[in-house]
């Protein structure tokens, strides 16, 4: 390619690139997402709108997104690094290294706090209850983490630990197709089931 050809060629390609950008932004940047929104709203309206959970007409949560729980009569989720805790507008993990002093100190405090909150617990403390999730809005805990908290919840509600354990077992989501992911319990679902069984006092 000599100099004049190169210039012509470059200008021609730049001209095409400009029009191409406009045309493809309309096609893939605007028509595609709006088309998909329309189809999603028709076929899966609940999911497309964010799986919002309503109680008495008031939105209380998204089924997907974890929330902060502090009262003894409810199951608690995992430690969260999202904002001030479970803030979906500020998602993320602690990003602490395995050799971080801060990680070790925080984990020690979390363990101490858990022991204090759950004096009747007989099971070993599960790993997920002392580690922060990647998103900071993990909606789930492991079945072990739920059973660990069962004595506390039972005492706060005047129920037997056995009946709380049975309720947990009913709400365990197994691995998908028996293989993918891990067994888990959605904290909101479990707490709603608790309230349905034994109305709040």
């Amino acid at each position: 390619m000599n100099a004049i050809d190169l210039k012509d060629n470059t200008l021609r390609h730049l001209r095409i690139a400009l029009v191409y950008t406009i045309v493809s932004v309309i096609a893939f940047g605007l028509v595609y997402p709006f088309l998909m929104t329309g189809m999603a709203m028709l076929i899966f309206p609940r999911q497309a709108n964010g799986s919002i959970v309503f109680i008495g007409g008031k939105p209380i949560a998204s089924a997907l997104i974890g929330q902060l729980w502090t009262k003894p009569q409810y199951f608690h989720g995992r430690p969260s690094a999202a904002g001030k805790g479970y803030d979906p507008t500020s998602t993320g993990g602690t990003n602490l290294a395995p050799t971080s002093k801060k990680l070790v100190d925080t984990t020690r405090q979390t363990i101490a706090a858990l022991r204090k909150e759950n004096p009747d617990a007989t099971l070993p403390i599960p790993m997920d209850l002392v580690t922060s999730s990647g998103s900071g809005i993990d909606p789930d805990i492991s079945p072990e983490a739920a059973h660990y908290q069962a004595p506390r919840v039972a005492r706060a509600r005047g129920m037997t630990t056995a009946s709380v354990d049975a309720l947990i077992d009913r709400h365990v989501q197994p691995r998908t197709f028996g293989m993918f992911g891990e067994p888990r319990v959605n904290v909101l679902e479990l707490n709603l089931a608790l309230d349905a069984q034994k109305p709040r006092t």
Partner: protein
Amino acid sequence: MNLFGWAQAVIFLLLVLLVTRPLGAYMARVFEGERTWFQPVFAPLERAFYRLCRIDPATEMSAASYLLATLAFSLIGLVYLYALLRTQKWLPLNPQHFDNLPADSAWNVAVSFMTNTNWQFYSGESTMSYLSQIAGLAWHNFVSAAVGITIAIAVIRGVTRTDRTTVGNFWVDVTRATLYVLLPISIAGCLLLVSQGIPQNFHAYQDVVSIEGFRQTITGGPMASQEVIKELGTNGGGFVNANSASPNENPTPLSNLLEMFLIFCIGAGLTYTYGRYAKDQRQGWALFVAMAILFAAGFTVAYASESAGNPLVHALGVSGGNMEGKECRFGVAASSLFAAVTTDTSCGAVNAMHDSFTPLGGLVPLANMQLGEIVYGGVGTGLYGMILFVVLTVFIAGLMVGRTPEYLGKKIERSHVQYAILAALVLPVFALIPTAISVLVPAGTATLGNAGAHGFSELLYGFTSTTENNGSAFAGLGGNTYFNILMGVVMLCGRFLFLIPAVLLAGSLAGKPRAPVTSGTFQTHSPVFVGLLIGVIIIVGALTFFPADALGPIVEHLQMLHGKSF
């Protein structure tokens, strides 16, 4: 480790294997303009593109012209996204009223998405308007992926063609890649992802009050339509900061499987496409097998290391695998698998925080990138990266037996090896030198999130990821002016200084005659060749990066075993 974890990896790879042939054959038909299923639907659109942009689909381009078109399109895309991010405040579809991005940050994001890196110094959920997401970021997800596929096809044509010295028409290839490959899979994938719970709306965020009385702002937006192309195009830039760890972007184990599948499928399919063009499927399968072996090795190390967990936490009286930065629904196995998948390719989406992986678990994604992301690879970039390694391997094998090296019957000459070496130098130069500089300047270490060896790993990971256009990150590098500007430059060099020699190499091979196969021909589809190829890939990577890795993850591993914290 348990059987479920291994089964997830095996089934996943089987699914990828299953789709390799049909998808690969389909792509070969698409790029040669043959009839396909989607033609009745998309052919009118394709013709509209050509008419509006005044493209003559019948003309082919030389390698140089093809590169000019690539650079022109990339330049316009860069300027466009920069302008959009700098003005989003005054544009529609911004229900959260997010401000314009500052100049250095907009530069970084614009380069990042144009180069298919999707490095994120920003939190999408609190900085990007819906318009910037769909018409800026997601649009780039489509076209930067299409450019990657297009370059791979041009390289394949150059390497395999004997009748012509041209490598195809860039505009035609980009149009076909988006319309016939990316768009149909995105439409189907988007609906599947919505069915799993990913939002797809244009509402403002919704405020809720929890049962315990806490206020919470539930994020939303056109997430699913972006999520699907983020994975399929191996882009990796999340709608929200936590990326695919967020239940908004990845709500179930099934969505997780689908996302990993989307990341691998085009890269795997292209190995078959390659076999088609070479008129010898064994050439494609040889690359597939080499890739599968490297994938399995990476997953195994990551899974074993994450399952073993963190002895510093175990010392506090809690047992189990490393769950810091991981989600309950995925656990250790699916998180290790995703980490391997996202760095074997140039995707960089994450479903767990790599920064909090155990040192050896975190070394796997780092090493995957250091080997050049050739394990299925970024859409397109992986295959042409692999072909460069093949050229090197053939050359080295030729030296060993004292014969003129040949590949697919074409003589590999001095200039071809020079192009391959030039491309191979890009990663060490742009990953290691900026890392070294950043260790020395205050701005480089000011924001590191962790002390000790891990802090160094954060820098090394960051520059490896940006050079390789991966985009996954250890955290700890702040979005300050220093990193914004430097990493922008690194991403540009990583993309184009690699792509240009690859296309020029292909251009100089195009039209060369193929010598007939004789008993003395070195077979490039034999197990011996696959072994040699893997050897070359590992030796090149290890020679380059072992010293740096020894200062980061490897020393951290030893410190962790001795119970040291920083």
